[in-house]
């Protein structure tokens, strides 16, 4: 076991009671992460999604988390204050069981980066755009092991997903072919 060390983690407190279902968080997230920056927007690419069923009064803003190649077994239901939620409604995973947190065209996984992307924002933009204060940014101090986990780049996460889908051989083959045609 390595040494313990103090570290600031960025968190968002989600107050679902304050959410009015406007999806401004999805708008600004997808615009910020467009390439070039803000050149387009498309909630389907957002890394925060509001899971909502208005007639059941269910509104849950959820952040995109880890990519996972296999779906979990969780199909349970939670009843909170008389409202029935699917377990999945609270899950951050970009997983094969649903189309949430995947690029709509390529299917590549999406992950919230707390708007640390270039230029880094002082607060995640969804928080800034949520005037109803359903999203509250909080920095918390936690103890972590000395060795920092290596942060994966967007591309690496994407590649991993492609690997899972097509296998290594197919990918190397395609990359080789593409680089040939690009050069040619």
């Amino acid at each position, binding site marked *: 076991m390595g040494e313990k060390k103090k570290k600031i983690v960025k968190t968002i407190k989600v107050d679902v009671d304050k959410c*009015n279902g406007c999806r*401004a968080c999805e708008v600004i997230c997808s*615009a910020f992460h467009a390439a070039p920056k*803000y050149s387009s927007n498309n909630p389907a690419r957002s890394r925060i999604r509001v899971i909502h069923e208005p*007639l059941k*009064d269910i509104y849950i803003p959820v952040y995109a988390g880890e990519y996972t190649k296999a779906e979990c077994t969780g199909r349970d239901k939670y009843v909170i204050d008389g409202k029935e939620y699917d377990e999945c409604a609270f899950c951050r995973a970009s997983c094969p069981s649903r189309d949430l947190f995947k690029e709509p065209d390529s299917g590549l996984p999406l992950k919230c980066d707390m708007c640390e992307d270039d230029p880094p924002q002082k607060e995640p933009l969804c928080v800034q755009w949520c005037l*109803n204060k359903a999203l509250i940014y909080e920095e918390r101090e936690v103890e972590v092991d000395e060795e920092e986990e290596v942060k994966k780049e967007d591309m690496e996460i994407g590649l991993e997903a492609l690997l899972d889908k097509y296998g290594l051989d197919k990918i190397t083959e395609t990359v080789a072919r593409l680089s040939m045609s690009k050069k040619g």
Partner: protein
Amino acid sequence: MRYAETGFNLEIDLSKGSIDRVETDPRLTEEHLGGLGTNARILWDRVPAEAEPFSAENLLIFGTGLLCGTPATGANRTVVSTFSPQTRLMAYSMMGGFWAPELKYAGYDKVILRGKSPDLVYIWINNDKVEIRDASHLKGKGAVETAQLIREELKEPKAQVASIGLAGESKVYFASIEQGRSSASRAGLGAVMGDKGVKAIAVRGTKDLKLARPAEFMALCNEVLKYIERRNENPIQGVMPILAGLGSPQEMAVHDEKWHTENFAWGNARLRRKDFWNDEIAKKWAETLDSMRTRLISCYNCPMKCGGTITVPGLPTYMMKCFSKLTYTMAAMSDLDFGLKIAQRATEYGVDGFSAPQVMAFAVELYEAGILTDQDMPGFPADNEERFYWLLDRIVRREGIGDILANGTHWAAQQIGKGAEAYAHNNIKKHEQLPLKLGMLNPIYFLMYATGEKINITQIEGQFPQSPFPTREEREAFVKDWIQVPDEKFKQYFLDWELRGEKSIPFYPTVEATCDIVDWQERMHYIDDALGVCAGLSSFPLKPPYHIHNYPKFISAGAGIEMDEDRLTQVARRNRNLVRALNVRRGMRRKDEKPPEDHWKKRFPELEEKLLNEYYKFRGWNKDGIPTKESLHELGLDFVGEDFIKRGILPDKESAPSS
């Protein structure tokens, strides 16, 4: 490259069952922007002036505003346009909610329906895949229920659905198109949808919408958001609470209904109940609202909360907004509990929350006056509330007396005869209005009401206060940060406006100033309706975040169309004149520009004539309210002038403009 818009419309011919994705002409966007503007242009170009509202030739257009789907706050309006079975003029009604942005993300600016489907169908737009699907299993289903069933059947919980209920299927002249928390309700749009055999349009889109100059556009969006935040924290002083904030009237949030219940008329828009509101009623109604309203909700990309989710114990949940909270209650002389209960059924049936209660109250009055009898209405209940359910059920099925009432008070009165006409007293241009009855004529309000093409009293409020502030100090404080005025002269008009004396209504603002003020208010409405921005953030409330000074920048940076205040003003005038021209071509004239006789207690016929004369002149219209050839030419609408001459609506040799 097209920005802010997609550059494609979806053309669906229901008779043939054909679906085409058609590229649009970017010049039309420059001339009319989008939404109402381009909708009107399409109606002008493609629907013959003689076309019957219920005919294959009539179009039903679902148009998104130019800024819908961009990050601009509150840009979420779908403008639904057609020719109305009730007014027989152009009908357009806006719905907020989530449908317009979804359509943009699917890759289309408009859905244009023509022809008629022999069987009931619904349309499923899933990005590039568009299908006309059988809807026979949805026949007779409620509008909200239909949306839910379609989402389940498509296994697409994220689809946005606009649907009609039984009223639309039965072609009730005041049938609405419902879309979750929003609806396009006025002038029978739902009836035309029913006539076309379309139960619903479901949309899902996952494509990008591009901006021309992103950094600039985002800076503007952020300014608007900051302004809204500040404005929400600082309501306007000196006006009643409902006018102090932004958004649509916050009916779902407020408990205090003293003003509405005592100033609006009850029953068939007749009875003012001056001492209605008391502690006991306040307590009871607050309990009703608190026990049934679960959450305050917004439209797409908007921080306001103008809608509410309503769950009446034992009934399916529905969503509500604005003043429909009280229309049923007051028409039936009942209480809020009844109002929220019957509104559930009315929302599923899909009827307009203004016209429907009025039509029912009209029927009750006719019955009490002996004009309608037990023979006309066999089985009509004795209990007051039961009567409203009874009428509603028959209207949406066009059953018995319901078949006549389904045409609205104007046409029903004509069919019934026996003096029933006098009971259809709260209409303008054959369309039922909010039951507002006032004392002294306000010249600004008079002009907007008389000449408004929307034919809808509820949408005429604007950025100029509805009444003067009592003291000069208060007025000075108000104008200090009034950045929205297009010109400093408006501040002066307001500063000089007094509660009593020479400079008070009806003779102040002067006729000239009134024309200026009306021009400003209308301009903002026409811009909002072309851009698809909610009036609740622009033309409707005092000191809104969007105004004539920042709108041109939004258009330039968003759509890449070079725009400044003058050019934008020109576009708004062009659209305003084109909508007028559509109505003129269908026979609307000065004689029709008459607010209900009893709308104000004190009327001033001479002043009213003068206001109309001067306003028409100001607009470049002749004495009959018809745009002249010259003024049409200035707006690049020569084709309208030529058509008018061909039809003999304007003389061949243009006479001097009216004087």
